[in-house]
């Protein structure tokens, strides 16, 4: 058992989940206290002791399924289908019965199980489906998704969905509202079936190739390491949860107060204090510095090549708008337009994005990124409103389609603002290759960061320090 657990912990670490020594010891201690025959109990025990972040659950679930699928369970713990009597649906087929596998018959049994939400029957159904339909070949080096796809296609999930829907909507005069609820129920149940099938395939793969090999192929990057440029919509949804805490932190960083006597001398109070020392101002008094109210302007490239990333940055902006009273957002493709009013508390994010693409004037010529023109237009229109408190954050890949960079506009912006920060979603090695004009703009920025993943964004927020009052020195 110990070797399985250590192997499991190694796999978690390899997948990027930080498991400390103390936690590993805790897990071992915990296992001594529980009945390890109970698979669910074992899973929850390991989860509670090893995984301390919701974002790592997906990695945990995959690793657990791989490492504990073939561990023989003691008889009679519910995971052993041989113990079941034959009068339940899906009696295990004797091996020589296989040629007579009847898909229609099988489907109607499956449908029955789905209708009654009989989980045991579903599990057996999934097992049989994989056995009969996946056509798994030992030793063949294909991934689990291939078999999953094959099984699902032969099961014809669309048909199954329609039939299940029909069965549950037997009542003719259901309202649209009730239909909707049933539809969702059907989807949820089919999802259960899909998961069972996936697990079964995984189990068989493990039997075939061994745990470590399967774990390696199934390993996926943690959500914080996924490249933002190529994130899928489900990845984005998962990232959303992490954005909230991050914006709070950013707000706190930007508003950080300077310590001690940074306020102006309070003459009245100093004189008053000096009376105690015979008129000698021994203890100078200062006014309390006003809490700094950060003003953040966000400039987002929303051109086609940046689609996924800009969706992410806009989401970030949206979350920020609850923490900053003075947040202004600008979007650009080849010209700049202010989109602040599309966001704000109480406004739905999805509709805000649609409105931006429809209503904001971000395209001037041909809809290819033109940073030079965008920045010039930006400075022309809004430059005078930039103050020494304004922090300008620009997000984009600086790919200018070989147009003149016209970086002087950014210089003007930088001179007026407290700080200019550039977040580039491309790997640093790609900067200044091809049509990227990062270096032209970079020299006017206080800092340029590679932000390809959520982790890098976290690091950026974590280490953010801004110059204070630089604009005043320039005057």
């Amino acid at each position, binding site marked *: 058992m110990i070797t399985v657990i250590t192997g499991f912990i190694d796999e978690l670490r390899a997948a990027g989940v930080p498991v400390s020594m103390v936690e590993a010891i*805790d897990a071992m201690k915990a296992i001594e206290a529980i009945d390890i025959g109970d698979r669910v109990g074992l899973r929850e025990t390991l989860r509670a002791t090893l995984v*301390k*972040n919701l974002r790592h659950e997906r990695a945990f679930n995959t690793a657990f399924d791989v490492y504990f699928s073939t561990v023989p369970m003691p008889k009679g713990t519910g995971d052993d289908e041989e113990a079941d009597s034959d009068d339940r649906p899906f009696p295990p087929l004797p091996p020589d019965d296989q040629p007579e596998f009847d898909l229609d018959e099988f489907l109607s049994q499956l449908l029955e199980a789905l209708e009654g939400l009989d989980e045991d029957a579903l599990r057996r159904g999934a097992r049989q489906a994989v056995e009969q339909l996946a056509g798994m070949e030992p030793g063949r080096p294909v991934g689990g998704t291939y078999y999953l796809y094959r099984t699902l296609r032969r099961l014809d999930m669309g048909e199954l969905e329609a039939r299940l829907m029909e069965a549950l909507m037997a009542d003719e005069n259901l309202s*649209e509202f009730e239909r909707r*609820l049933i*539809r969702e129920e059907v989807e949820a149940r089919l999802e259960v079936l899909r998961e069972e099938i996936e697990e079964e395939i995984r189990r068989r793969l493990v039997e075939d190739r061994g745990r470590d090999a399967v774990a390696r192929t199934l390993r996926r990057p943690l959500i914080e390491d996924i490249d933002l440029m190529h994130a899928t919509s489900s990845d984005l949804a998962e990232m959303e949860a992490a954005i909230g*805490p991050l914006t709070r932190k950013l707000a706190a960083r930007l508003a950080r107060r300077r310590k001690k006597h940074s306020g102006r001398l309070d003459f009245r109070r100093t004189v008053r204090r000096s009376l105690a020392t015979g008129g000698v101002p021994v203890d100078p008094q200062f006014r309390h510095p006003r809490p700094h109210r950060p003003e953040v302007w966000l400039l987002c490239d929303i051109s086609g090549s940046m689609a996924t990333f800009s969706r992410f940055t806009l989401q970030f902006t949206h979350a920020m708008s609850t923490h900053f009273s003075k947040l202004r957002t600008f979007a650009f493709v080849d010209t700049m337009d202010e989109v602040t009013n599309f966001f704000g508390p109480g406004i739905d994010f999805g509709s805000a994005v649609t409105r931006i693409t429809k209503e904001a004037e971000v395209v001037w010529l041909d809809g290819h990124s033109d940073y030079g023109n965008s920045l010039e237009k930006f400075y022309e229109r809004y430059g005078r409103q930039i103050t020494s408190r304004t922090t300008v954050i620009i997000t984009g890949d600086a790919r200018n389609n070989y147009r003149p960079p016209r970086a002087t506009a950014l210089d003007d912006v930088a001179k007026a603002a407290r700080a200019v920060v550039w977040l580039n979603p491309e790997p640093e090695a790609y900067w200044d290759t091809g049509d990227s004009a990062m270096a032209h703009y970079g020299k006017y920025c206080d800092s340029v960061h590679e932000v390809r993943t959520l982790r890098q964004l976290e690091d950026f927020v974590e280490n953010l320090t801004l110059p204070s009052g630089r604009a005043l020195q320039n005057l």
Partner: protein
Amino acid sequence: MEFTSPQVVTDALESVDYLPDERISQVVFLADRLDKPVLVEGPAGVGKTQLAKSIAEVSGRPLIRLQCYEGLDEAKALYEWNYKKQLLRIQSDVDHDWDTISHDIFGEEFLLTRPLLEAIRSPEPVVLLIDEVDRVEVETEALLLEILSEFQVSIPELGTMTANTQPMVFLTSNNTRELSEALKRRCLFLHIDYPDPEREKEILAARVPGLSEHLGEQVARVARSIRGLDVKKAPSVSETIDWARTLLALSIDDIDPQVLADTMHVLLKYQTDIEKATKELASPAKDSGS
């Protein structure tokens, strides 16, 4: 009451109308076995605080609660010296020399215990609930570390106070910020999510007496449906319970779009959310034919 197995935990909690899933029972059981604190995380209103309360109720232990907020400090969480009383002691005593008095005024008599210290010093075992721990600053979190790993508090003037009895500790977090690794390492982690409709139905049945089976199922399904939408604040379990109570009070036994539109404000607290849900769910049939 002793938690000898996860099943015992489940049964005990069910007896006070808290319906745990297997994850909750397992973690509570482990916490009891290993004497480790539990960090409970999850969206607002899924019963994180209630879990601690229910555990206190079934185990017959008193509940000591520390509500966290920004600016919470040692004096409010751990202990404080009773300055006024110390002053009085000094003033009322002119005969003794300074050494005796200074030794005297830092005795237990002058100590004001705050929740954390109280939990440690309690003669009987307690349930300690540290609520919304994500609200305190990272620096303040460090206050908790000693008590969470060693169950002791060090007071410079008095020495180290060790727990007489092992408290059961629950920390809750809404995850508004990432907690420090040091804190997480010392705890068992329990994430509670919205229950699936089956369990939510059972929760409703337990919490809202008189609710019909049919209505309970509908309420649970509507709740899932709304949580599936992209709303600002998804309805919590306590809000679905409120909603079920409302429906019961209005003696409605079947939810239709009209009822939903009329009572939506119990479930959703933002105007934009209400509009969105109404548009999605309660708008009159536009037959999509699917």
